């Protein structure tokens, strides 16, 4: 199978680590060669963060470059836009509609581009937007946004639902499995 590329983007602290751990676990269990790459350290402190997940018969480079991503899963609205140049033609953006103001917006040096998803759609990008924060709260924890988004991503794959569930069981602490399974289900079915 040709290599598939997924980018997970968001704001440092939003839980992209668990999302990439889940994907990594699942894809290894499915027998793919997998590379998962993220940057630690300074950028985690509320900055823009990006994780690359690549899988197929063989994954060489850990990086996903311009025009290469099959999917961009974004935890925040403008973070999807920040990395849109990495999407390949015909790729899909799954985006949590949550707005988190970056510091230049907070201190009034820049405006938050609230209509950015419409602009992406107008440019022909397939945008799948979802209020993951509400769904996560419905599942029992606002922190489960990441798993709601993984639920939505799962709809685009041929991997059976139970395989995703079993990957959740392997990656999440026992106390949180139920909430995360619910979050996954809400992402998958809404």
């Amino acid at each position, binding site marked *: 199978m040709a290599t598939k590329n997924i980018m997970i983007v968001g*704001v440092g602290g939003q839980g992209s680590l668990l999302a990439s751990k889940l994907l990594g676990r699942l894809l290894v269990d499915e027998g793919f060669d*997998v590379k998962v790459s993220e940057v630690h*350290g300074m950028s985690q402190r*509320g900055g823009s963060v990006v994780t690359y997940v690549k899988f197929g018969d063989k994954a060489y480079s850990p990086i996903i470059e311009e025009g290469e991503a099959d999917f961009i899963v974004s935890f925040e609205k403008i*973070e999807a836009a920040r990395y849109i140049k990495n999407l390949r033609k015909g790729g899909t953006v799954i985006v949590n509609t949550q707005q988190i103001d970056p*510091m230049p917006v907070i201190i009034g040096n820049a405006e938050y581009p609230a209509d950015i998803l419409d602009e992406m759609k107008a440019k022909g990008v397939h945008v799948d937007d979802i209020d993951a924060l509400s769904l996560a709260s419905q599942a029992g924890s606002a922190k489960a946004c990441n798993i709601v988004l993984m639920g939505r991503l799962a709809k685009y794959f041929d991997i059976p639902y139970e395989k995703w569930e079993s990957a959740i069981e392997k990656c999440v602490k026992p106390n949180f499995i139920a909430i995360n399974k619910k979050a996954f289900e809400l992402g998958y079915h809404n």
Partner: protein
Amino acid sequence: MKELMIGNAALARGLYEAGCSVISSYPGTPSTEITEEFAKFNDTYCEWAPNEKVAMETAFGASLRGKRSACCMKHVGLNVAADPLFTMSYTGVNAGMVICVADDPGMHSSQNEQDSRHYAVAAKVPMLEPSDSQEALDFAKVAYEISETFDTPVFIKMCTRVAHSQSITQTGERTLVTKEYVKNPKKYIMAPANAIARHPFVEERTAKLTEYAETSPLNRVEEGTGEYDFGIITSSTSYQYVKEVFGDKAAVLKLGIVNPLPVNLIKDFARKAGKVYVIEELDPIIETHCKNIGVNVIGKEKFSMMGEFSQKTIAKAFGLEEKESVCLDTAIPVRPPMMCSGCPHRGMYYVLAKNKITVLGDIGCYTLGSMPPLNALDMTLCMGASVSGLHGYNKAGGEETENKTVCVIGDSTFMHSGVTGLINIAYNQSNSTVIILDNSITGMTGHQQNPTTGYNIKGDPAGKVNLESLCHSVGIHSVRVVDPYDLEECERVVKEELAKNEPSVIISRRPCVLLKYVKPKKPLHINPDKCRGCKRCMKFGCPSISFRDKHAVIDNTLCIGCGVCASLCPFDAFESEGE
């Protein structure tokens, strides 16, 4: 067992399987997880040292005693450890010793982009360079064999993309190797007479290692399909980018040993390949070697000495077609990293910025105080430089600067190399005010214990340096402790200490809000009837506060209820739950 592992975890596993029994390190992105992962094994000893020099010397001591050892650090940490390094090259080792060093091309979390390979060349110490997690594990074992066979410490050089990328890794069993300690003054006492006698050994060793590099499987030729009229010499993560672009079609000399570099292997490869490109991040180490041995290569004229590479870098350099992508018309505001909601550093920075105090800074989360809206810093150089820099600044500035300049340094950084600067302040008596931002953890690198926290790497109770006593004992008479959540107290104490005609230390103490034992309070909210939109709270730079429809609002998913913002509001608009 096959597992998806980051390069650093795989390297830790490799060290473990190779029988490494002692690791001493200082944390630094992107090297930190090597030691953190190693600490999870039970049948080994592992510690955080106060700095990289101490770590390297500790590992040396363990090797001397007969246990395989290692120390791990980031590229700039190797500068700190350079002193023992250069002489350990002369003494060699008893049991094998590995130095893991992680470079950060692109400066994701570093203050410079130095290339650690220079150290291997300069200190005449062999260096291995893995390109993925499996190689990180395998190379660790080879490194110990080289170390003991050739009587030398051995470098394993990581970079951000190898250290922090996960790939599938086959793990194995641990084999313990130990050596007898035998007293050997000629080898281990590097006084001039002995060192003079050891230097020829170092030169002979390099010659033997060059021979080894000619045939080692770590340096391998991939023939290619003959489709291209050129060959590529590469190593580390650049190898992955080359493979991504050319697959198995191009001829590649993949180097796993980057010091010393082979001669005949490169000459043979170049003879068959015709035109040769050298693709290496940062400095032209391989390229310069090729040119020195008379092999004409194309390197830095096509590939930058700055930043990270990717498959795009390589495709572009070879004139291959660029991939189609979408471009938006709207500018997206940048999202730089910043201090967290409730970060204790923010209060002290607010006070310093408000009083227009010149602030010499240091390395850690608190470097983020340089960002708008606080813009609180004037200088950041390297670990510990704030304290010694302040001393020099005040010696040069005298009365003009002494009462309006401070330095800020974290607890871990102070232990690393700030305390020697403070000793200089006390000894040579500059009228300097040092602020220790004590958040009771090494923050930026992801919460490592340090000598001031009272816990060791495993989280067990350990010795604890008392900062107040330490400062007193080196000769600072005025040592004050403040809570950075109390802005009034901070302002009063800073002004008082600056006014004094003697060296002083202010310890700004409150634990990092991300620590598990720090329980967040309920988020505050802003009463829109009381908020008049004056934006005074926005000057605090808390990511939880933003401005919507002429009022400040609090994001209750981010706010941890520290309440410092409430003290800034002239209209009492900030309310806690239940009000």
